[in-house]
């Protein structure tokens, strides 16, 4: 169901574009060719534009299929959220690439987007269903958008942290043996760890306020839907756990100068908690909590 929609076909094209971008970013690290990097950026951008069209199309299709009263923004089920997640990651990544010009980072960020697209396209239900009463709220849209931009920031920080940890050992050895000379080899193509560390921080500086907004819009929605802005249900609690971890990251950073390895590990831990909050809670915990209300 849903696979015959135009939006679904556009999403398939998107997946292909993101996949090629990922391959080209990896190839860029291996070849150091700026032409390859340009192709990578171009593929990612093309995929992003196609996906923007796909999301708009799916929005339109919801009106066509469900009638003008029941159409809704395409952010209401697992499939829609996971492709939206990919869209946020690539969008934010491209913005950061444009601003900071480090293309090698794409090799570690695009895989997350490709995974999200593949999972969504291959194994989730793509049908466009009308919304049950609990989801009929504009807060849903604000909530999803803000949370996923936050998650995207954390995904980028995660990719960068992995790069950092891959590089740091050999960079330190190189510094010890050869002093401050450029590093050769494939690892030499990764940006210097000092830059990666800063990038990690910058991505979290974007992700954290967005997650804050996501939690607040969720609380507002819960208040307007059932009268409690906070009820410690597993999803809420996990989002708070994620928030605490990144708050710890930021404080360790501004005031104690925690940078480098510890920061990278904390960022990876934060992303693991993020993914548990997004997916794990639905898969492992939801049945346990009987929730008052609708």
């Amino acid at each position, binding site marked *: 169901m849903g696979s015959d929609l135009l939006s679904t076909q556009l999403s398939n094209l998107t997946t292909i574009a993101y996949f090629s971008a990922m391959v080209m970013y990896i190839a860029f690290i291996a070849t150091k060719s700026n032409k390859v990097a340009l192709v990578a950026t171009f593929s990612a951008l093309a995929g992003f534009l196609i996906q923007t069209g796909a999301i708009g199309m799916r929005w339109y299709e919801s009106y066509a299929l469900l009638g003008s009263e029941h159409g809704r923004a395409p952010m209401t089920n697992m499939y829609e959220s996971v492709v939206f997640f990919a869209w946020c990651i690539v969008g934010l990544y491209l913005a950061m690439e444009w601003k900071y010009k480090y293309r090698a980072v794409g090799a570690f960020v695009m895989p997350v987007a490709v995974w999200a697209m593949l999972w969504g396209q291959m194994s989730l239900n793509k049908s466009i269903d009308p919304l049950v009463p609990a989801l009929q709220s504009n807060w849903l849209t604000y909530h999803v958008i803000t949370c996923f931009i936050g998650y995207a920031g954390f995904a980028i920080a995660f990719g960068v942290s992995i790069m950092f940890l891959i590089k740091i050992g050999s960079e330190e050895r190189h510094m010890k043996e050869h002093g401050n000379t450029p590093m050769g080899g494939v690892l030499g193509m990764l940006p210097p760890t000092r830059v990666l560390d800063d990038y990690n921080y910058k991505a979290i500086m974007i992700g954290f306020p967005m997650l804050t907004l996501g939690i607040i819009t969720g609380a507002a929605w819960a208040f307007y839907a059932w009268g409690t802005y906070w009820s410690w249900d597993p999803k809420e609690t996990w989002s708070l756990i994620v928030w605490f971890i990144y708050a710890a990251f930021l*404080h360790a950073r501004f005031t104690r100068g925690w940078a480098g390895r510890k920061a990278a590990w904390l960022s990876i831990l934060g992303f693991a908690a993020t993914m548990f909050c997004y997916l794990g809670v639905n898969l492992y915990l939801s049945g346990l909590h009987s929730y008052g209300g609708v």
Partner: protein
Amino acid sequence: MTETQKKQDVTDRIWDFFCSLKLTIILLLLLSVTSIIGTVIPQNASASEYIRRYGQSNYELFVKLQFTDMYGSTWFVALLGLFCVNLICCSIKHFPRTWKFFREPVKVPTSATLSNSKNKLEISSKDSMDEVVERVQNSLKNDFAKTVRTDADGKTYLFAQKGIYSRLGAYMTHISIIVILIGAIIGNVFGFKAYVNIPEGGSVTHVTSRDGSQRIPLDFEVRCDNFDVEFYPDTRRPMLYASDLVILKDGVETYKKRITVNDPLFYEGIIFYQSSYGPAGDATITFNATDNQSGETLEFSAPLRNRVQLADGYSVIVTDFTDNDRNFGPAMRLHVITPEGTHQNPVVVWQNFPEFDVRRGGQYSFAMLGFNQPYFTGLQVAKDPGVNVVWAGCIMLIIGPFIAFFMSHKRIWVCIENNGKAIKVQVVGNAHRNQAGFALAFDDLMQKVEAAVNNESPTKEG
């Protein structure tokens, strides 16, 4: 060491402990880890549920450790309290240092600032001192901020700053967290969470607290005129739950609203949310009974499980009904009672397939015409006088980090002196965050300042 010194030492150490950022980080991580417990162990379930799931001895352990209401447990609340104390102490400790930037801005740079700054410009001019000072002042005023002039030891100093308020972003963030917690406490102390079920046509003047322990009186009466549940066509997927509510004050209708999920009714600080529904009393079933010998058909309308007299001493009871039986639509189950009192076998009759029962060929055949099920509407009721405080805190929590992360306090100092041969102008600047961005902006600004000092328009330079 004297006694008082020792005491002071201890208080200092305690104070330092509460102010320390290490404590903050440990608390943040500790709160993360402990919060997981309540997401894995169901909260506020019944004792039997815990025993069934985890066994008796684990249940006793959970009770001892307060895991069954973890987020309200003494130790978790204490952890949150410590977190607030840490936040407040730390802010108190650091505020004077921040306030100094407001109260006593450094208007005259030290010679170290002048020589060690990363962002630096040195130019000289043959024009007069006064002219140069005025040009620099105007240039900074147009392109950066108004300057403050200090004349000291034969030199003229200019100082300009922007974004000093960004130094308060962290405080605003930290205060916002306290504000949110205060709002939550106000809500808990002065508000309530309750529910009430109102049958269609009925009204209530009390609600029941959510844990079932208290009946809470309202200052008014709430009536439910009607409850509707609608499904999307040809599915069992609910489309709408709605209740028509009326508020009566001293018996007079004062407010009316049709509430739906996500669109509650607000009245005198109390909010009514559409939350659930259910049958209120028995449904009334309408059906035809046809005497298969005479061919005579009569229509009946009777509540469920009520005995209905047919002709010749026969009677019928509808024992059950559903609005959708295995996707065949509405159906009812009934059995006929003979004049002798024998209960015949139960029969199922589908509303959409009346011919099935004709084919059965009993004494009577039945056709279902419809049913009317009265409902009650289930409402969550909340009063939360702290919620606006919480929202105010939330807004601060959005703005505060934004200011703290993305804005910076930028300062520029100028030293202008006559070294005998020419007028020497030194400009330095710094920003307390985002130095890289400031460095670029500084270079731009310096081109303008240089052009101004040389009395040329910057556009001419190309």
